[in-house]
């Protein structure tokens, strides 16, 4: 395949940045999108030009490190992670535009690499059950209905990539935050801190500068793991019942 890549290049956070076009030839349809970028980087290195920096690690769709806004969609045309996107999804002669996630809470570090530490801080605000190692009951002491466990699992599959934020016109992190709140609100282990968790995580989400939710559903439509919008509805319910009855925050 022959392609033209329009890639966002930005030396660092202070740099203004802009698009640079690169022609690319000899791309196989069996390559993953990131392998195609590897080819580009080998060519740039050969020519003595700085390779395009992008985040990636596991390359099997689970670590959540890869990002990229491809032709106006987070992770590109398929509902999957960029590392699992293959070049057979494109046509010979295509021009592909590649940008970083764009959100105030995800500042650009370099080229296509952004800083997603804000997600970590939302989890640090309450995305856990406060149990220390040791001294916990036997794993089978509290039965959990299979349907509940499965639903909690569905929420827990979030990989924290940030596509939801990138997809949202408000750069809202409601889907990410609600997935963790939902998972723990559904499980018996999460009950003790249920209200406090909802309040604190949402307060942190707002403090990080993420936008509000206007229910367009783009986040869920673009989520590589298909995290459901139901989680946002559940989070709102959790939040309202928490603020009406708790003494926290």
């Amino acid at each position, binding site marked *: 395949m022959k392609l033209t890549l329009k890639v966002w290049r930005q030396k660092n956070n202070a740099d203004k940045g802009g698009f640079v076009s690169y022609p690319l030839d000899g791309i196989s349809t*069996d390559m993953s999108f990131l392998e195609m970028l590897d080819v580009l980087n080998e060519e740039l290195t050969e020519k003595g030009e700085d390779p395009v920096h992008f985040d990636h*690690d596991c390359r099997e769709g689970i*670590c959540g*490190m890869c990002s990229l806004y491809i032709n106006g969609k987070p992770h590109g045309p398929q509902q999957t992670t960029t590392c699992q996107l293959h070049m057979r999804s494109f046509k010979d002669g295509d021009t592909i535009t590649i940008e970083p996630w764009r959100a105030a809470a995800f500042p650009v570090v370099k080229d296509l690499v952004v800083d997603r530490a804000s997600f970590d801080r939302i*989890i640090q605000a309450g995305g*856990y059950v406060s149990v220390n190692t040791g001294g916990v009951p036997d794993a089978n002491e509290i039965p959990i209905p299979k349907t509940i466990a499965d639903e909690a699992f569905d929420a827990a599959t979030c990989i924290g990539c940030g596509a939801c934020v990138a997809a949202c016109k408000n750069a809202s992190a409601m889907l990410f935050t609600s997935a963790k709140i939902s998972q723990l609100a559904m499980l018996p*282990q999460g009950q003790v801190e249920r209200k406090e968790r909802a309040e604190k995580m949402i307060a942190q989400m707002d403090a990080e500068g993420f936008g509000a939710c206007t229910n367009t559903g783009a986040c869920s439509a673009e989520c590589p793991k298909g995290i459901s919008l139901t989680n946002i509805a559940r989070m709102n319910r959790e939040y309202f019942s928490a603020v009406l009855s708790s003494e926290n925050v």
Partner: protein
Amino acid sequence: MILDSKLPAGPLAEKWTKHKFTSKLVNPANKRKYTVIVVGTGLAGASAAASLAELGYNVKAFCFQDSPRRAHSIAAQGGINAAKNYQNDGDSVYRLFYDTIKGGDYRAREANVYRLAEVSVNIIDQCVAQGVPFAREYGGLLANRSFGGAQVSRTFYARGQTGQQLLLGAYSALSRQVANGKVKLFPRTEMMDVVTVDGHARGIVTRNLITGAIETHAAHAVLLCTGGYGNVFFLSTNAMGSNVTAAWRAHKKGAHFANPCYTQIHPTCIPVSGDHQSKLTLMSESLRNDGRVWVPKTVEIAEKLRKGEIRPRDIQEEDRDYYLERKYPSFGNLVPRDVASRNAKYVCDEGRGVNETGEAVFLDFRDAINRDSEDTIRARYGNLFDMYQQITGENPYQTPMKIYPAVHYTMGGLWVDYNLMTSVPGLYALGEANFSDHGANRLGASALMQGLADGYFVIPYTLGDYLAGLGTKPVDTNHPEFEKSVQEVKAKISKLLGIKGTKSVDYFHKKLGKIMWNDCGMARTAEGLTRAKGEIKALRAEFWKDVKVLGENEELNQSLEKAHRVADFLELGELMVDDALNRNESCGGHFREEYQTPEGEALRDDENFAYVAAWKYQGDEQEELLEKEPLVFENVKLTQRSYK
């Protein structure tokens, strides 16, 4: 120096309990006077950092990824073993211990493995309490499955994403301690060196991957939880960033490296599709429960298949060779990983491989679909089938999957004693980074178990014993050893950036990978290993003359990051070859063609090789010194593994 494994005396089942009692304790009020560095935030690192912080220690946690949640433990699919015996099918701590020792081909320490089996039950309790959504039965209790050839169902799982759920559990515990101020996180930070003062580990030197700043951190103890070194093969199921740098630089500071040649090749991975390939993707071993492995009976049929003249479905039953079922009637497709991998190599070497490169075998679900219906198979493996189709563009419900072995895990690693301390006092290694529990071959669903056992339930006890003997004197980075190390790191960076050669880092990494895969992979010979040693030396020399690393240190520079890692792989590779050459026997993941039974199975030599090979660094371009830790078996009888 004689390596002291510090194994406690007494009956096997009482060793750990007794050891915990005799270990010194740190007074609760004194714990806050100690600082502990944890490098790596996977299952071992995150669980250790969280547990130590909960106890009151001050922890500094480092990872090279942008968040601790990205560590490659997240990609583990299948499950985690625990001797809960919830299924009433005859499991016990002793059976898990026995299976692990036998599966490791009798090259692990009895006491370590028994402890692992013993604490396995606590891990499941801990994870459930954190809110890990394990699979459950309709009655609400935890579900189990049989995994990797085990005769009992002891594997706990969360669909095909068990590693993800366990890591997110440990990450949540870690996050809680970050919020409490007991853990300070350093993401996008790479360890460049361990600093020792008077022979004790006293801190590390790091590079901030965003700014390039070289920084120093002092601590009373340093824990390396930095995973395995499978990426020495370039192509593996490891993440792109997985590397040996932290472990290797510790090795060069005096920590022995044990059994480096023990590498696990996983039989069910998606085959290589071309030269562009950057990594290999594992398909969970659970697929072998229902899939049947085969190749055409003859080379002629295989050739037609490769040319696309016939399709797999056109090949009649009598022209198919279900070689695992034929050779191993009682275990069939469920033979251990090393046996399954080696046999795939044999049939492909015979010219019966089924894809364009000739390096693939079929994993066929036709019979399972006919027997149980497509919906049933979809419910069991739907996500794996989708992933396969995503990567290959083929529909595995209609045509058999193609699979081939790939490097997956490394059993070797930094030598540690029973306390998980390396041969450098105050320096510990946990999880895949150490060598301790899997012998020459790891059983399925045991990696997650070991990582979490080390972090949650072993190090919190054993670290206290060392710290209590140390006193509470504060440590700082003013010692000249820190400055010396910083200068060495800076010199290395300048050297890499200053070569300005003609070939990229990946060029060298790919070449090294090919050498390792061809001559130090699934089957090894003295001849091939000797050749590989020469090739690696030459490649390393070429690297330091001709590598091209662009950019500067003072910025995010992914080429420079890779260059450091590949430089270390180029040294490690030679040690792996030395170790494989030294071990004149076959055991587990180490198969020397000269040493096999008449049936072609691994032939151990217990009389001469029942030891841990621990290698001591002697200086750049010097041969390493081999020190042996004898393995003593008091409880199990050494037998030839047989899966016939």
